[in-house]
């Protein structure tokens, strides 16, 4: 284990710590209450089952759904796979065309690609330069054989909020099933499934101060949406998803979503203040660009590109903070973020981007430290940069003809 001093954590969109209140609620189910919720013949099983059902109610309450509409999964990746493959396969006689967006998470894009291999056709919509999907563009993509649409509520890299209601209404008019990946949205934006025209919605616990390894899929009952199970076995979750339920993790997700429901209004206000402070502080640095629309965006996210700084050295230089240079799931690759490229950002600006994501345990001092650190390090990196020097001399770098070598 590394013993170096811990950096300041500003990567809440990658994963959040478990809230201590959530951990406390989980512990009994890790120790004395260890029954299998499917055990019907003794109190260990009944206690576990009751805990699972209480948690189901909490998850449903946060999004104003019926508890019977909540199906447990191992996480948002499984929820997305189950929703997309499960609905497309069940309704494939209706049509084999799917619409999604180029800036979706890999856990949506890859199942859609998998369906393409199985004979479906897919349209990957390009968002505008702010990351938003226009309703006109979406409407134009609908075909008579469109069976399913998948659009995320909140983007994991740039935090923009899509017009789910608008897209959903168009889906309803055209009899298209609508799936929404809300992994990054719970506790950040209000979700009302009683009024939203959404058929399937994916949730994750570990982005909302719950444990990893647990998520849920909302499956609408009225009108009833059917999905083909992707995991077969004991017939748990009304046959939609087999596998022994992990009681402690489910209890953790329920508690995390309860806290989110009760505290999100005040918490988001505090987080917005911190984010705006960070934004204004970083904007005093020359040649910075905010990626993604600022108005339609969760308060937790700030994604900025720092021009004339090389991406890798930037990440090395800001080791005092734990941030992401693109989505956590793809940051091991050196490819620039496909999300930022879809906004039309150059490879250079995409490479020199940082995603700051602020959360429950971020303090004002953390933000002050971050602003000071970025100012200092970017200043130093630019001092070493010939490109920066040329820019300062008024040379338009995009017009420079570089010698081939």
């Amino acid at each position, binding site marked *: 284990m590394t013993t*170096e001093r*811990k*950096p300041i954590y500003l*990567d809440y969109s*990658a*994963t*959040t*710590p478990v809230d201590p209140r959530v*951990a406390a609620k*989980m512990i009994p189910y*890790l*120790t*004395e209450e*260890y*029954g*299998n919720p*499917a*055990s*019907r*013949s*003794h*109190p*260990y*099983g009944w*206690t576990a089952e009751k805990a699972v059902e209480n948690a189901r109610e909490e998850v449903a309450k946060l999004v104003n759904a019926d508890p019977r509409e909540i199906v447990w999964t*191992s*996480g948002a*990746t*499984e929820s997305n*796979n189950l929703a997309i493959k499960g609905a497309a396969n069940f309704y494939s006689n209706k049509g084999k065309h799917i619409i999604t967006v180029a800036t979706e998470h*890999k*856990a949506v894009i*890859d*199942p859609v690609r*998998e369906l393409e291999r199985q004979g479906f056709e897919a349209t990957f919509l390009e968002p505008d330069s702010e990351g938003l999907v226009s309703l006109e563009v979406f409407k134009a993509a609908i075909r008579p054989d469109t069976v399913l649409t998948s659009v995320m509520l909140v983007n994991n890299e740039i935090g923009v909020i899509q017009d789910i209601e608008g897209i959903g209404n168009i889906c309803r008019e055209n009899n298209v099933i609508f799936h929404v990946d809300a992994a990054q949205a719970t506790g950040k934006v209000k979700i009302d499934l009683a009024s939203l025209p959404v058929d399937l919605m994916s949730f994750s616990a*570990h982005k909302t101060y719950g*444990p*990893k*390894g*647990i998520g849920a899929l909302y499956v609408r009952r009225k009108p009833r949406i059917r999905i083909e199970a*992707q*995991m*077969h*076995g*004991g*017939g*748990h979750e009304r046959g939609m998803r*087999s*596998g*022994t*339920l*992990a*009681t*402690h*993790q489910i209890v953790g997700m329920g508690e995390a979503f309860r806290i989110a429901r009760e505290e999100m209004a005040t918490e988001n206000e505090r987080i917005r203040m911190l984010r705006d402070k960070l934004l204004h502080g970083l904007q005093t640095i020359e040649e910075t660009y905010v990626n993604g629309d600022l108005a339609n965006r969760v308060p937790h996210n700030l994604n900025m590109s720092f021009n004339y700084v090389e991406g890798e050295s930037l990440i090395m230089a800001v080791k005092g903070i*734990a941030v992401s240079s693109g989505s*956590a*799931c793809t*940051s*091991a690759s050196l490819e620039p973020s496909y999300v930022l490229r879809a906004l039309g950002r150059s490879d250079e600006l995409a490479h020199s981007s940082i995603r700051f994501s602020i959360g429950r345990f971020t303090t004002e001092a953390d933000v002050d430290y971050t602003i000071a650190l970025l100012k200092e390090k970017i200043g130093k990196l630019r001092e070493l940069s010939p490109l920066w020097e040329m820019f300062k001399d008024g040379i338009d770098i995009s017009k420079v003809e570089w010698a081939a070598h």
Partner: protein
Amino acid sequence: MSTVYFDHNSTSALKKEVLETMFPFMTSQHGNPTSRHVFGRNARDAVEIARVQIANAIGAQASQVIFTSSGTEANNFAVNGIASQLAHGQILTSAIEHPCVTRPALAMQARGWRAHGIHVNADCKLDMHHLHNMLAAPTNLVSVMLANNETGVLQDVAQIAELTREHKAYMHTDAVQALGKIPVSFEDLGVHAMTISSHKIGGPLGVGALVLDKRVDIYPLLHGGGQEKGLRSGTENVVAIVGFGAACELAIKNLSHFAKHTESLRKRLEAGLQEMKAMIFGINAKRLPNTSFFAFENIEGETLVTALDKAGFAVASGSACSSDSTEPSHVLLAMGIDPDVARGAVRVSFGVENTMSQVEAFLKSLAQEVNRLKQMTAIAA
């Protein structure tokens, strides 16, 4: 709860030592293993340490261990993922497999594969002759569990694997119930794929693994971020994986004690059962040391399990899954047991914390309940 827990094959209590290793990863060490900063690196390191612990416990290489969310997922992954990469052929599963093996095989039928069950005999042992005959047709995959969850009967998986290999088919074994109760070696079994699960061995719920020979092509069940070398996408369940690793290490350390202790409890239990003229299923075969599955003639349905619960003993009426519980156990039916007798079957599965005095008390309660129920049946008749 003052109930005595005799249902360890369903799920087992998390060991205290295991919980201690997990706790830091819930709170202070909370990173996402894919992140490149120190939080991410620490999480990644923890996952890799657990992978080595698990591999060491089962005679495998760390790189052969693919984490999943459960044994169910690993079994679905094995059946669907291995067959998907091959030309349409048949998938053979034993008649006593857990539904999370047989149902994915049946689901493959819709996509052009054929699924068949292999018979077992009255002792719950695989009918090798039947397997041999079935292998005459081109076969993709054979799946036979190492230990049955209901009867505890062990199959000769190494021998079955050899036969399967001779017929150029892949061999998978569900070792979920065997791990931690008998020695399990992936290498010695000679299988291509093996399923294990954490919560049956004193680890947490929510994590399992498929152990896979790397020469076997497998198609992912879950697509996305490309974790587990692209074979299983989804953020790693770090806390549970850490617990699984610790539980494996502990289970191997305590293996001989577990076997000795639970077998002595079972010996006492079954001596009592035989005095009461119970039918003990699979008693002539080699079984897990902790499992006893029995029934009494003329006692039907779940009445006995319910009565035992009232007397303070948590036992199972068969496999703990959410399927309709009035259905008789498919394992007993495959063994040729009368459906009425099968409906009244009781499974006792011991853990190390169970004691001899609990067994004595259980036998006393059981004798009372059996007499009472027999009298009631006699009156009704």
